[in-house]
């Protein structure tokens, strides 16, 4: 099947500043793609290029098989939702929804029908006559989504649509967006800073850094098999624990300080048997304690330095064998500062990265 969006060798610079460099990306029809990355890495820029709001420096953009590189935003068959909602303040919600359709000179009846349909889907029918100033944050964001919805666009672009909302509303609207996607099954590209949003919404996540896509994969892949140390650190909170050390010549042991970890069960890249300096990373939630730790292939004795009870689980900062590690424990566990603790993990859940290239081994 033809990809819904296909970006080829895209480059964009602002003067001397190269924001996007030779970026390639294909998004399948009906896919929900999340762009994730630290601030300033070029997510919005990429989205604006797809929308046609920025002139690209080089490369091509195809939407639905058409080369739209030089086309006006309104002709690209996209709908866009912005972080600040960008509702036209002087128009009512209905006016906001219909503005684009009026510009496209659609017949009145059709405009009305589409506005009503979108309003119904988003449950903003009672608000149609109000101005944006008279809406709550969540209602405004719904209206902004409605503006994209009425366009019957095949591609939806979201630029951090929920980041101006409080946590509760964010969670609610997240579910709504997910349902909307299931109902409409159009292609969506969604920029966010929020990892939970990314993990829950995405079919695939693209992790960006410095104008490049570092990794493109399902949430699962990104979480379990990050391609490099940056991605590994970026995903997950608190972030992955790292041990600085050496892989022995047989690729079966990892030594850090006085300790030696067996690596049985760790899946190195097919056909490789790396050795030499490396990072070994393990997520706090993959660390175990107590009886489980005693049974784990890798064990350490440590002392609890700090406890952060979160309710559902408990985070503990443990100092063990000269390392300071975050460990995620059960919420009901009763430990306190200074307690001795045994922790351990299974190397199968670890990630090992080359010391110099920082790529996953």
């Amino acid at each position, binding site marked *: 099947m033809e990809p819904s969006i296909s970006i080829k060798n895209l480059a964009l610079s602002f003067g001397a500043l190269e924001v996007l460099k030779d970026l390639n990306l294909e998004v399948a029809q009906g896919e929900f793609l999340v762009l994730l990355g630290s601030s300033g890495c070029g997510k919005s820029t990429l989205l604006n290029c797809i929308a046609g709001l920025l002139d690209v420096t080089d490369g091509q953009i195809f939407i639905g098989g058409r080369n739209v590189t*030089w086309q006006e935003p309104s002709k690209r068959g996209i709908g866009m939702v912005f972080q600040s909602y960008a509702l036209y303040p002087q128009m009512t919600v209905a006016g906001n929804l219909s503005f684009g359709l009026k510009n496209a000179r659609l017949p009145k009846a059709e405009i009305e029908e589409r506005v009503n349909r979108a309003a119904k889907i988003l449950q903003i029918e009672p608000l149609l006559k109000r101005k944006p100033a008279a809406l709550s944050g969540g209602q405004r964001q719904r209206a902004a989504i409605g503006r994209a919805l009425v366009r019957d666009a095949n591609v939806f672009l979201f630029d951090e649509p929920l980041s101006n909302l409080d946590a509760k509303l964010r969670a609610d609207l997240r579910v709504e967006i997910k349902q909307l996607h299931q109902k409409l099954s159009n292609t969506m590209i969604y920029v966010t800073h929020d990892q939970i949003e990314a993990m829950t919404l995405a079919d695939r996540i693209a992790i960006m850094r410095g104008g490049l896509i570092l990794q493109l994969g399902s949430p699962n892949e990104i979480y379990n098999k990050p391609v490099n140390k940056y991605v590994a650190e970026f995903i997950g909170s608190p972030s992955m624990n790292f041990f600085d050390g050496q892989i022995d010549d047989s690729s079966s042991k990892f030594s850090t300080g006085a300790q030696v970890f067996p690596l049985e069960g760790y899946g190195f890249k097919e056909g490789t048997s790396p050795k030499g300096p490396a990072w070994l990373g393990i997520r706090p939630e993959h660390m175990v304690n107590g009886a489980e730790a005693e049974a784990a292939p890798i064990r350490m004795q440590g002392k609890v330095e700090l406890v952060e009870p979160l309710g559902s689980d408990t985070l503990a900062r443990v100092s063990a064998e000269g390392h300071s590690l975050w460990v995620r424990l059960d919420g009901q566990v009763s430990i306190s500062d200074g307690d001795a603790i045994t922790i351990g993990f299974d190397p199968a859940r670890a990630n090992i990265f080359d010391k110099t290239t920082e790529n996953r081994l």
Partner: protein
Amino acid sequence: MATSDRPFQPFRNLNAKIASIPMILTALVIFIGCTIWTIYYSFTKSKLLPKSNFVGFDQYERLWSTRRWLVSIENLVIYGSLSLIFSLIIGFLLAALLDQKIRFEDTFRTILLYPFALSFIVTGLVWQWILNPDFGVQSVVQGLGWESFSFNPLYDADIVIYGVLIAGLWQGTGLVMCLMLAGLRGIDEDIWKAARVDGIPMWKTYLYIVIPMMRPVFITTIVIITSGIVRVYDLVVAQTGGGPGIASEVPAKYVYDYMFQSQNLGQGFAASSMMLVTVAVIVIPWAYLEFGGKRRG
């Protein structure tokens, strides 16, 4: 694959370019073209009509040996420096007064600023009347019994420029006050709270904390006042007509009189070019400080 038409470069963003035509014409024809034209003809012997008979720096030599021009420059320096200093001090003090969370702040501000809404002609004529030696302040004070009191700036060549200064300050300090007040309001409330908790007296807070923080406001204000001072013309025309004699002449009036009355265009052009130099001496360093270091968009 279908390719959308690449818009032809010069026609891209065509509407924005059309909308900018007046600006482009003004920038190029008026601000650059006319300025160069004037500088060019300031090196000619043009009299009634502009002619290209070059005389080098003759016009400038004549200018700097004309007593009237020298008086004009001297007046500009006196008026300019005093007006700058006083309007900054008075403007800041007034702003600080109004910033004391007083009642009727709007009323007071309205009163202090209204002269700024009036033209220099109106200002000049009012003060001409108030300073009138036979009916104005001087005669009123004398009438109160102080027979020897004498304050006659409009007819005393030595102090006439101070008479103009009084009118100029009356008209312009309100603006400075407003700019300063905006600057004061722009300062974080927490600074005041911190100073109060630390027990720093108010005047010290102003002097050592607030004023240094308001540096950009002061610089902007100074640039605005000075570029206004160089242009001062209407006020003098209305209040003193340059008199008594030539005692209150200013460069802008010199330019106008030579261009449009004495039919000596070359002199007018040379004098106006000198005014341009004066402004450049002030604006260029400021622009360098303001925009030079950090490139801006």
